[in-house]
């Protein structure tokens, strides 16, 4: 099949064929749970989920702060909790040698997008 299916393309083809490749069949997000790396494979899975939840909670909290319905004290406590949560996650990521990219959480704003 030789037909070129591109009707309109204003970008650099190289840059975007890489991006499209990522969006379709993505080797990098493959999670290998073999005997050698079962531990880190499992850690990755768990941390991905925890991080997802943490980010959702953080997002929801910011919406409320932005909405102006919280008292100063509430904001202060929220900040303390969330900041510590973020620090804890950083520690865990370091411990397991995982980056944000590994956890595949760089998906843009979370929430009701997908």
């Amino acid at each position, binding site marked *: *099949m030789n*037909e*070129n*299916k*591109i009707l309109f*393309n204003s970008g650099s*083809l*190289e840059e*975007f*064929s890489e991006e*499209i*490749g990522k*969006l*379709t*069949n*993505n*080797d990098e*997000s*493959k*999670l290998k749970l073999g005997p050698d790396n079962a531990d880190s494979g499992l850690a990755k*899975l768990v941390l*991905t989920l925890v991080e997802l939840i943490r980010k959702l909670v953080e997002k929801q909290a910011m919406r409320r702060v932005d909405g102006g319905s919280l008292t100063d004290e509430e904001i202060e406590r929220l900040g303390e909790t969330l900041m510590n949560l973020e620090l804890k996650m950083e520690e865990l990521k370091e411990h397991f040698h995982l980056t944000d990219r590994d956890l*595949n959480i760089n998906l843009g704003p979370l929430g009701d997008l997908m």
Partner: protein
Amino acid sequence: MHDNVIDQSKDITILELLDRVLNKGVILTGDLVISVADIDLVYVGVKLMLSSVETMEQIKAGRAIIKE
């Protein structure tokens, strides 16, 4: 230079094509002897695992799941 552009544009076309033919379209299940598509679906079901075309080479003979 001109050739380069044409090749890359073919790359996008091929990526789009493969995405469609491997991941979309009608799915047949049930009393099948083999389905490479089924194996693909096992991976997709886990969500964190997406098979690549190159990986599918491993699915060839010997590793195919035979259903009753």
